């Protein structure tokens, strides 16, 4: 047997809800109407948070902000599949799921406004802080998944990252180790097809990102990331597998970065408006609304009520942000170590003296 097949596998794509709001009846998950409406509401909150942040940024009341417009279904779908006790390890474009996992909105704003207290989440919120070095967080997700396994906790570490982050060595090491150790981890790639100005086909020659799972002997699946049901189903399967000792899963959620990379970027320099417009038509929120309307789960009056609720919430968020007390200048020293070492004590005194003068 001189030329033999030693490996043979396929990678699948899962789609349930199409852009017109029609569902595949066979695959559609059996979700209570309240849950579906809740998913919609959650995405509306994300959209509002995003829009408001962009406004605040233009007014100089917010720092650099990476918009999540268009990526809400991934974050809502995964959040709804997660259970209490599960950990979230975000990259930096996960404000939506951070919110749903318990991070107060005004803290999310505070972080991006340049205040470390934005990452001091309330007790019990199992969310890691934003990870700026691209790809580095995949390793933490493998480590948390191993931690849960070693301690026999039936919880899962859910890690997010972008398509660009799959090029970093840390992505590879994390997937490989998670495979070897059977970590209780789910890895979600938000494939929004751009890494700043670099399109996916310049990021990797592989046809899909999901197929990278073959390198690690772990399951991989591609889902329509603008389809909250497909995301929910894939995430639920992966979470159940991880929770029951079946090891990690790689999920590629295909979507599009509708906005600029961040408020410091101008995407019109490097990509055509037509591409953006085509994807705007595949909006995940609109899609779910169409479905809900056709299924009799939603109507104008519910929409109006939600709009009101969202407005009020976002205004309160801004108030909460701007009512945060000023930081103590000593804060830049206080949390370097559990105890303040002599050099920092001395330097802290310098700063205090200077602030006083």
């Amino acid at each position, binding site marked *: 047997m001189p030329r033999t097949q030693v490996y043979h596998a396929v990678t699948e794509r899962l789609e349930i809800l199409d852009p017109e709001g029609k569902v595949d009846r066979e695959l559609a998950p059996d979700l209570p109407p309240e849950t579906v409406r809740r998913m919609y509401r959650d995405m509306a909150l994300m959209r509002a948070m995003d829009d408001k942040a962009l406004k605040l940024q233009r007014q100089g009341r917010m720092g650099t902000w990476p918009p999540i417009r268009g990526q809400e279904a991934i974050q809502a779908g995964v959040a709804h599949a997660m259970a209490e006790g599960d950990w979230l390890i975000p990259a930096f474009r996960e404000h939506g799921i951070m919110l749903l996992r318990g991070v107060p909105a005004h803290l999310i704003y505070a972080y991006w406004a340049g205040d470390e207290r934005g990452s001091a989440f309330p007790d019990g919120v199992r969310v890691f802080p934003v990870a*700026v070095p691209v790809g580095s967080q995949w390793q933490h997700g493998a480590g948390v998944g191993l931690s849960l396994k070693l301690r026999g906790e039936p919880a899962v570490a859910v890690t997010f990252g972008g398509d660009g982050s799959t090029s970093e060595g840390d992505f590879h090491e994390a997937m490989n180790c998670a495979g070897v150790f059977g970590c209780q981890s789910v890895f979600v790639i938000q494939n929004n097809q751009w890494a700043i100005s670099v399109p996916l086909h310049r990021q990797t020659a592989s046809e899909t990102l999901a197929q990278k799972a073959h390198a690690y002997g772990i399951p991989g699946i591609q889902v329509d990331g603008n389809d909250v049901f497909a995301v929910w189903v894939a995430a639920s399967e992966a979470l159940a597998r991880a929770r029951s000792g079946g090891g990690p899963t790689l999920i590629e959620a295909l979507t599009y970065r509708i906005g600029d990379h961040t408020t410091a970027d101008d995407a019109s*320099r490097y990509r055509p408006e037509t591409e953006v417009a085509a994807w705007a038509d595949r909006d995940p929120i609109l899609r779910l609304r169409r479905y809900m309307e056709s299924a009799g789960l939603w109507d104008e009056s519910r929409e109006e009520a939600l709009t009101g609720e969202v407005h009020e919430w976002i205004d309160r968020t801004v108030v909460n942000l701007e009512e945060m007390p000023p930081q103590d200048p000593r804060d*830049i020293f206080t949390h370097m170590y559990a105890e303040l070492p002599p050099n920092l004590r001395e330097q802290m005194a310098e700063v205090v003296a200077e602030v006083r003068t």
Partner: protein
Amino acid sequence: MSATETGSAAARAEGSPESSERLTIAQAVRDALRDEMARDERVIVLGEDVGIDGGVFRATEGLIEAFGPDRVIDTPLAESAIIGMSVGLAATGMRPVAEIQFMGFVYPAVNQLLGHAARMRNRTRGRLSVPMVVRMPYGGGIHPPEHHSESYESLFLATPGIKVVVPSNPYDAKGLLIAAIRDDDPVLFMEPKRIYRAFREAVPTTPFTVPIGSAKVVHEGDEATLISWGAMVRVCHDAADMLARDNISVEVVDLRTLNPLDRETILTSVRKTGRAVVVHEAPRSNGFGGEIAALIGEHALLHLHAPVQRVTGFDVIFPLAKNEHLYLPTRNRIAAAVRRTLEY
């Protein structure tokens, strides 16, 4: 002499440009890249977003249009690959100019930089060399997210084999970058992002070099020496101006190259003034200021009227936007340090 004039003064002193243009540092960098790419086809530029986007600070703007995607290469998001591939490119006849998007993202490339680029010539006793430049914006002052404000020069100064160059003005930016590209060894080129566009200066339109390894007295004085580099040179100028109003005369030395260090220019100035203040953005402990203080102690101890002062960042993580001002050296902190040396 105000900070914005130093470069043109430098131009008069070091070159004889037929024509010049008023450029920012970012433009001077681009100019240098363009000149060298036109002169030497082995020179290529690679990094994240350096192509159609022109770099997140626009320092490579227009290059892909001028030289095409084979010489201006958008890479995957992989810093170790950017440097590791550059090692392979440089060792086999190319002259890669790699960009690391922010100095805070150089960590994943440290193995390739310090483990290979810095060692190849020595390892092969001169048979293979790695003539590459690694450009990276460094330093604070732009209120960005975490990891975007770092000054990690110490990492590359504590291990030998990589030259480290930091311009403080547009003239030097062009001249030093051209010198770096022509250098036969790896050069880390730190660009002071805070002043990328802060001011313009006359820069010769034709290629010229500013020698690597030579510091410069950019402001003369005789009571104390301020030693600095990059963005902090301007703050030193401001401090010198402040002190001048109180009739305190300080000299400012712009190191321009951190390795190889122009020790003589430092020592000559300190032997004259008898007082030294080193200013840098990196944390104080084990920063390059310590090395300079040690060298002054070793070679000019008997000239010192007061301990060498260090005005630096603190031994903490570079703060997010709202606390940046607490961290970065200011002209007030520098002036206070000078006064301390005078009152000692």
